[in-house]
């Protein structure tokens, strides 16, 4: 099958209009690294395609006390975001330089596991997703955006246009374990954020996991195991154990479900220990 049209809209309004007009026939590219890989492999034959590369939604700005990152902002750009160290950390460990120059923050939200690393620090930071559609714009928490394997809360006539990251407090870190040092999907990725109370106990915690389920996810029982506790060996062990129990990893050529589950425990422990 031949692709008859490749649209490169100059604004989000134009992009939403094209999506409404062409509907499910239209395959949407952010940076193209996912879609074009599928096209090259013969897994996808788009009748029509649309790139958001020139829709004016790249870049980083301050909005309402939050940092708004346009959907087509590249991973290379995220790696320079010193104000969000956990996100910069994850971005600098993502793929390889040429991939980082192309892949986008919005597109990566649609990566199939074990890919999709960028959502891990974003979940740890309580990021929101902004969607644009014919009914206007809406925002929802990122952890409500992911629904299932290859399924998101995006309606068929909507586009992801930005993520917003609140400037939250707390200590953060990101660890990523792969079979090689670089340019390999994760065996497991872990992002943590721990907010300390005045008495030194944990007031709030986020533990986000990648390659550990049908989509990037928060380990809520692991978070609960920390809250109200001092961040010490017993509470960290409890959180690591909980994360290992509640995750739902996949088996692929890189690692089995069995192995990934154990590595979730190891890397949640290591991430939390690094904050003590």
């Amino acid at each position, binding site marked *: 099958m*031949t*692709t*008859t*049209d*490749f649209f*490169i809209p100059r604004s989000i309004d134009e992009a939403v209009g094209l999506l409404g007009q062409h509907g499910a026939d239209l395959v949407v*590219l952010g*940076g*193209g*690294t996912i879609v*074009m*890989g599928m*096209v*090259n*492999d013969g897994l996808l034959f*788009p009748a029509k*395609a649309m*790139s958001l*590369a020139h829709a004016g939604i790249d870049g980083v700005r301050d909005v309402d006390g939050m940092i708004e990152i346009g959907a087509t902002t590249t991973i*290379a750009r995220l790696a320079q975001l010193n104000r969000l160290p956990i996100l910069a950390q994850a971005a600098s460990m993502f*793929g*390889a*330089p*040429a*991939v980082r*120059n*192309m892949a986008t923050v919005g597109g990566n939200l649609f990566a199939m596991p074990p890919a999709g690393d960028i959502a891990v620090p974003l979940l740890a930071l309580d990021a929101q997703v902004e969607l644009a559609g014919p009914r206007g714009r809406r925002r929802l928490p990122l952890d409500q955006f992911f629904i299932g394997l290859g399924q998101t809360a995006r309606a068929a006539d909507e586009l992801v246009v930005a993520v917003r990251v609140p400037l939250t407090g707390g200590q953060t870190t990101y660890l990523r374990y792969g079979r090689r*040092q*670089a*340019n390999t999907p994760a065996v497991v990725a872990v992002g943590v954020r721990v907010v300390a109370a005045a008495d030194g106990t944990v007031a709030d915690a986020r533990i986000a996991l990648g390659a550990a389920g049908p989509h990037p996810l928060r380990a809520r029982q692991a978070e609960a195991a920390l809250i109200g506790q001092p961040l010490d060996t017993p509470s960290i062990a409890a959180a690591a154990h909980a994360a290992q129990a509640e995750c739902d990893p996949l088996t692929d050529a890189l690692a089995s479900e069995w192995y990934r589950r154990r590595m979730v425990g190891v890397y949640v422990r290591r991430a939390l220990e690094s904050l003590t």
Partner: protein
Amino acid sequence: MDHSITVTFKLNGKPTALAVEPLTTLRSALREHVHLHATKAGCGQGGCGSCTVLVNGEPTLSCLLPLALVAGQSVTTLEGIGTPSHLHPLQQTFHDHFAAQCGYCTSGMIMAAKALLDQNPQPSRDEIASALCGNLCRCTGYTPILDAVEDAAEQMRQL
């Protein structure tokens, strides 16, 4: 029915216009339309780096980039950085250090290395390895490649 589109861009410094099918990749355009074969077709997934070219000076995977998106941009391939009689220092040092065996990764390696040296004329060995981490070589074991890039960096600093 012909759905082809015409894309105008700068290729190795020369204004170029190509008529291609809508989703044709930069890699296919280079190899099949202008017959510049240095840029290799490898995995098609962004995993091997053998199709690496520079778009506006940045290393880019030409197999994942629709040509339509390089309209108005500047593309540099291996053919654009040196000639057989005037090799780029990286081309010369890859030769001197036996950094190419089968040669399939070489164009991508050199383009990724060029992007690094253009931004960082004095990289450490670790920085070279990081810059080349998306480029797979199954022959050399990488050591001659790192040697070649280090040597080229030194030569380019003396130019």
